[in-house]
């Protein structure tokens, strides 16, 4: 019971930490909106390709903006953690008579909630720009759940690097992972139009399955197999990355 209290307090603290100052959230909302507006206009002609399958590139590209919102909202978790470590605040938490696991779980839950909140803001931007959400409010809630789950999984990468290196620059450099994980996917074209090694790389990228689940929920409808794959991949990624956090935690603070 005490563990849940500790998680609750550290969750609230983690949430405040990731939302302060408010101005710092703007870039993580601006970037998905920027890519969405620019790319959906720049590549509008791709819909003329034989077999593309979508009449509006904006509608096709909208889930990429949602995926980016998840990436950007959860990418700061490692930075938050390394700031705590280098400032000594993490040590302060470590000498409190609490379950140490609560420090990590509280932070992960805060990241998950922030990912859901930012995802919902980007969905609003998408809808206002002419995007679709064919699964309605229920689909919206499923997207938030997927965003929360994958956000936690993604944030664990930065947190692991923070714990292992205890270095701000090294942790910040994990940002570059965003590019391959976002763009070596079906973000620009549907899978059946991709060829060679690139197609293989796209199929190996877990983010592809999250993106396809988001695309189903926004554009196609309740494709349970695609949505299910998205959740399974998010869960599997989370198991791997959160295990890495736990390992890093034990290694750094034996």
């Amino acid at each position: 019971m005490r563990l849940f209290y500790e998680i609750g307090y550290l969750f609230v603290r983690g949430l405040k930490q990731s939302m302060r100052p408010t101005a710092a959230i703007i870039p993580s909302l601006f970037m998905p909106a920027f890519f969405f507006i620019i790319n959906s206009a720049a590549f509008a002609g791709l819909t003329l390709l034989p077999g593309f399958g979508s009449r509006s590139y904006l509608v096709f590209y909208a889930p990429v903006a949602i995926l980016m919102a998840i990436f950007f909202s959860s990418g700061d978790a490692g930075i938050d953690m390394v700031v705590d470590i280098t400032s000594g605040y993490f040590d302060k938490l470590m000498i409190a008579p609490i379950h140490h696991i609560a420090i990590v779980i509280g932070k992960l839950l805060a990241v998950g909630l922030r990912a859901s909140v930012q995802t919902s803001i980007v969905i609003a931007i998408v809808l206002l720009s002419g995007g679709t959400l064919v699964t309605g409010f229920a689909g919206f809630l499923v997207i938030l759940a997927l965003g929360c789950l994958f956000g936690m999984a993604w944030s664990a990468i930065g947190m692991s690097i923070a714990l292992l290196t205890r270095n701000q620059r090294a942790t910040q450099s994990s940002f570059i992972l965003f590019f391959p994980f976002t763009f070596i996917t079906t973000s620009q074209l549907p899978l059946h139009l991709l060829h060679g090694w690139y197609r293989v790389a796209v199929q190996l990228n877990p983010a592809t399955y999250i993106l396809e689940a988001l695309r189903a929920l926004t554009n196609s409808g309740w494709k349970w197999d695609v949505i299910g794959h998205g959740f399974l991949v998010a869960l599997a990624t989370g198991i791997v990355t959160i295990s890495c956090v736990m390992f890093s935690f034990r290694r750094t603070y034996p």
Partner: protein
Amino acid sequence: MANCIVEVQDLVKRYGENIAVDNISFSVSEGDFFGFLGPNGAGKTTTMRILATLLRKTSGSVRIDGFDVDRQANEVRRAIGFAMQDTSLDNLASGYENLQLLGVLYGLSPREARNRAKELIELVGLSKVGGHWVNSYSGGMRRRLDLAGTLMHHPKLLFLDEPTQGLDPQARRMIWDYLRRLNLEGSTVFLTTHYMDEADTLCRDLAFIDRGKIVRQGTPEQLKSEMGGDVISLTFGQNVEMQNVEGKLRTTIGDLGSMTVNDHLIRITSPHAKELVPHLIQDLNAIQSAPLSLSISQASLEDVFVKLVGRSILDDEAQLIKGRDPFVEGRR
């Protein structure tokens, strides 16, 4: 006799080949104001982090308030408060928020934590800024808030790692007054510092640590009385040939005192300091090496340290500033 709240026996901490803490033993009585003194890199912070359960020891035994630091870490944590060398606060939270979170993590109810935070914020004189984010606080305000944080759960033992480092004299004095009051109210204080005047002013018991080893323990008065007299300090200009000066002064002093040389500063400890001074000046004039300054003072803890280890804490500071670690240098 008071109970021991800190009991350290044969403590060793190694980092690979490097021995940071080398088989030290000491104890601290309940209610004491204990100073752990030494230069940077001597092993003070490492020892304190082991005592506070933040670092695992290589070998030895450490008990805090009767609890083993490895096997009963949470019991130890409930008994202690730890203010680290650099203030460790959540910069993007207010003073109140910082304290309240610590309170609930240490087992207070949210209401108790709120009340205790309010009480402590008033006590450390931060009422006006308690609701502001900590990143707007000055160094002294941060230190006071950090100290308040360590007191949220009424700890029996306070670990303070260089609590006044980097503070201006006024802020230092304010912290000193506050620490004295805490100690008078019953808290045991375990302080590390490399400021000898701070230790002399605050501590009732001391241990000197150098290169991982405890070189002497005792009360400030005991340690200073062991110096066996007053201290004559002579400072010479850079153009003075110190070998000649040292040789001449050793002849002058004979067996009437002891002498240490640190660069262009010479300290002579003697029970006949006042009588020696005219002879020293006369002999130095004879070799045309008059000092830039000469003073006589009662022995300080800095003098005790110099006598014990043969160099000044300030020398180590200077070496660190130049980028050389005196600990590693000493091992080469």
